[in-house]
């Protein structure tokens, strides 16, 4: 039976192998390489083109379509000598770090209370804690304005009691506090998942050697979750640099500017759009955020290493809080929920149904549907609502389809194209929605073939797909990875091509995950407000961006009604996501 009893292995190793350490790889036939390269290439184009255009524009002396535009550093010179720019830069840094200083400890504490103790109502709290994350920050910011702003409902009530309002949210401190509180879920999400994976035998081992509960928390639990805390901190710094809604609503009235609002203000500063200046600030922003994204990627890898060590499925025993402990813990969470959810959303709800308020006005006498009636009278507002729903429901579904195609292109893929994909996905995370929207606005102006699409929802949709890319692709990739490799390999050995395998095995198995992903992407698209600011035109209004432009006119009644609609839609989306079993904790 054997032709070569023990073939001399050295024989073919002579020439080629002697020169190199090991011979060249075999080509992978039937691995859908063409599909992978085309999809990843198109994605690269969709992400790199707008970024490239921003960089190009930043080196011009006028708008790129203007015949007067010349290459040069004029725009950089202007921005770097503008003291408002440095002020905005400084404010952004203070804002981001301040936000982290509030969000990280509080998020860590909440994660500890909810995952490691026997706190009551855990299931409900787990969902409630995430709510601020799903609401657009412009809605939240507006909510704070009407509840605790200078003439907010709560402010008036307090003034009625003690004669003055002991806070001012239209200040840097107010902005930081509100942004910090509303970013707690982002911290909670990462820290709680690492705490959940922390096996309690590590803590029990410490306790049996005689450490008290608080010593264990400090000496064992904290170091174990430290990587995730650091990751959450870096994520929040990034979000701080990109935030737009809160500074626009709360900072702008007092002239407090961050980089994003500085970009936005440049539009109106000169009367005519100064694209080159906006591009320069966008480039600066990218230069700050890109290293942060890089660092985060590294951190995340390390954090995963930690978690993997703990092992999965470990039994987690919870800390008994006791009666007074329960009261304190629930009190902390309750207070936070009151400030970050009840105050803004309650404010919006009340404000949406009243027309006038002030000292000595009984709100019950003012109850009215007029705000909504008025809203229905204005075609652009109605279109905004319809467009938002179309973009999130239909667009969300199409986006999931696109992310699935990209996910498959990167699924069990090796080599250069996969490295490229990894880096392309990083890029949009470094870009604030405002900048992505601006860049796509330019792309649709710049590329002749695309110009007819600019006044349609397609342009906004494309920008949304890029904005949601990192999040959506991560959702899809983790879903795809749940398909055991043998299930695909067995289809291949049975005779299916890779395309058939995806169609007959992979996609049917991940279908439930796709539904969940759709609901989550829907929420992301619903709450988006910054991306549409520049892209939006007559006929393509969306709720969030309408609110941004209405803020300039001070149409508070309309904004309140729109905000409430946005909150209700988001709530419906969240309910759908939970119903579809979406993993909101991922």
């Amino acid at each position, binding site marked *: *039976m054997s*032709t070569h009893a023990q073939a001399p*292995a050295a024989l*073919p190793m002579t020439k080629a192998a002697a020169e190199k350490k090991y*011979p060249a790889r075999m080509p992978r036939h039937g691995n859908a390489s063409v599909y992978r390269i085309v999809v990843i290439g198109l994605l690269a184009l969709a992400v790199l083109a707008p970024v490239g255009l921003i960089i190009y524009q930043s080196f011009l002396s006028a708008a790129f379509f203007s015949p007067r535009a010349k290459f040069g550093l004029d725009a950089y010179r202007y921005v770097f000598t503008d003291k408002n720019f440095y002020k905005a830069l400084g404010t952004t840094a203070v804002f981001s770090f301040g936000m982290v200083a509030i969000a990280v400890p509080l998020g860590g504490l909440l994660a500890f209370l909810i995952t490691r103790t026997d706190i009551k109502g855990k299931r409900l709290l787990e969902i409630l804690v995430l709510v601020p994350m799903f609401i657009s920050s412009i809605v939240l910011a507006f909510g704070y304005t009407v509840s605790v702003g200078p003439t907010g409902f709560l402010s008036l009530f307090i003034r009625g009691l003690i004669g003055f309002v002991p806070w001012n949210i239209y200040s840097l401190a107010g902005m930081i506090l509100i942004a910090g509180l509303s970013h707690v879920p982002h911290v909670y999400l990462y820290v709680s998942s690492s705490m959940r994976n922390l096996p309690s035998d590590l803590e029990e081992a410490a306790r049996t050697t005689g450490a008290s509960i608080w010593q264990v928390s400090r000496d064992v639990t904290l170091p174990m979750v430290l990587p995730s805390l650091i990751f959450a901190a870096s994520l929040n710094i990034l979000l701080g640099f990109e935030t737009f809604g809160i500074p626009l609503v709360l900072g702008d009235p007092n002239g407090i500017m961050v980089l994003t609002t500085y970009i936005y203000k440049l539009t109106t500063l000169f009367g005519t759009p100064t694209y080159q200046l906006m591009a320069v600030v966008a480039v600066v922003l990218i230069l700050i955020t890109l290293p942060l994204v890089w660092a985060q990627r590294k951190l995340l890898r390390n954090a995963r290493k930690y978690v993997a060590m703990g092992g999965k499925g470990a039994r987690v025993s919870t800390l008994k809080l006791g009666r007074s402990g329960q009261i304190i813990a629930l009190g902390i969470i309750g207070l936070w929920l009151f400030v970050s959810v009840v105050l803004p959303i309650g404010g919006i709800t009340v404000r949406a149904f009243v027309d006038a308020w002030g000292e000595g006005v009984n709100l019950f006498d003012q109850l009215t549907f007029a705000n909504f009636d008025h809203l229905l009278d204005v075609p652009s507002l109605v279109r905004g609502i319809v467009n938002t729903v179309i973009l999130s429901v239909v667009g969300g579904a199409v986006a999931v389809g696109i992310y699935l195609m990209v996910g498959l292109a990167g699924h069990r893929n090796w080599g250069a194209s996969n490295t490229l994909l990894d880096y392309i996905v990083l890029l949009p995370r470094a870009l604030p929605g405002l900048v992505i929207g601006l860049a796509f606005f330019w792309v649709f102006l710049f590329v002749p073939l695309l110009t007819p699409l600019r006044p349609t929802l397609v342009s906004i949709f494309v920008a949304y797909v890029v904005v949601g890319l990192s999040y959506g692709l991560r959702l899809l990739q983790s879903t795809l990875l749940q398909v055991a490799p*043998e299930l695909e390999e067995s289809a291949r*050995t049975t005779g299916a091509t890779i395309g*058939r395998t995806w169609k007959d095995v992979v996609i049917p198995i991940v279908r439930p995950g796709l539904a969940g992903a759709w609901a989550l992407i829907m929420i992301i698209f619903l709450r988006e407000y910054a991306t549409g600011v520049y892209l939006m035109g007559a006929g393509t209004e969306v709720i969030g961006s309408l609110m941004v432009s209405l803020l300039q006119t001070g149409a508070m009644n309309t904004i309140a009604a729109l905000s409430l609609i946005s909150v209700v839609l988001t709530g419906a989306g969240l309910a759908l996501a939970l119903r579809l079993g979406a993993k909101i904790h991922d």
Partner: protein
Amino acid sequence: MTELVVNNVQKWLGGLQILKGASFTAERGSIVALLGASGSGKTTLLRCIAGLEQPEIGTIVIGGKTVLDGDKKLALPPEQRNIGLVFQSYALWPHRTVKENVGYGLKLRNVAAADIGKRVQAILDRMGLGHLADRYPSQLSGGQQQRVAICRALVYEPRVLLLDEPLSNLDAKLREEARYWIRKLILDLQICAILVTHDQGEALAAADNILLLQDGRIVQQGGPQEIYSNPNSFYSADFLGANNIVSGKVQTVDGKSAVIGGDGWSLNGTVREAAGVGQSQDARAVIRVEQIKVSDTPATDGIEMQLDDSVYLGDRWEYRLSRGDFTAKAHGTKQMAAGKVWAQIPQESIWVFSGAQK
């Protein structure tokens, strides 16, 4: 008829070479077992045959069709190799019924629907699974899942059936039954089958040919009896069977026979090292446990040893023997008192290899 030719397959992973030139052939109606410890490269070799891994060097011919040629940079994807693979985890598609799982290969081959139904039912009936056709995999027991996986890999009559540790997820009793009927099925259907296993009992009982792999190389191949009773290296001798390993020095050598000895003992053995052994060199002797006969009455051809203990194993007794630094295990039918005993070991069963024990 030769269905599979594997010639000098070499595979690297990163800078590490995990297959160092594996060559063998396999015939229709026979089972070839790839046997080896974990990390020996046996599963990688199987996956190379299936096309799930791409070796850098070598050729593989399945049913007369070249599916891999390192020189021509030809590597057909798995779906073009006409093979059937049974996975260790069975890898049944959870979203399809038993019928759909088994019929998929036929559907891909554009067999008419009515025909698919007939052939699927026929093979399920043959395996005693006919009544489970509409169940989902999660509703089946482990043994049933395994049989479905085999049906799925066989129904389209592949040229080569590859089995990757197919029995390792079954409990011990089921495993012995399964290896018997798998062998019977393959012989009945006249298929060419390659079985990957780390369990020597499985390889010995099921295979016609055993390839013993070590560190990416086939170190010995042959029929079950040949490979068990005629090992050509210390690794082969040690891997199969239950063994006593004795370390000592070669005292005298005379052609094929040698005397190995240590502190207060010496044994007449047979040299098995291919290169031979030299005088006063470090050496190891491998003695199969079943080759030692122990008696409590003096025997002229026996070596006097100390019985330290008798351990009851249910169907037999295990004796713990020692003499100086020579310790051994042996089996017998009765309990013996600790003390002086005589161990009889045939010279041809004391296999002497060079090298010190690690």
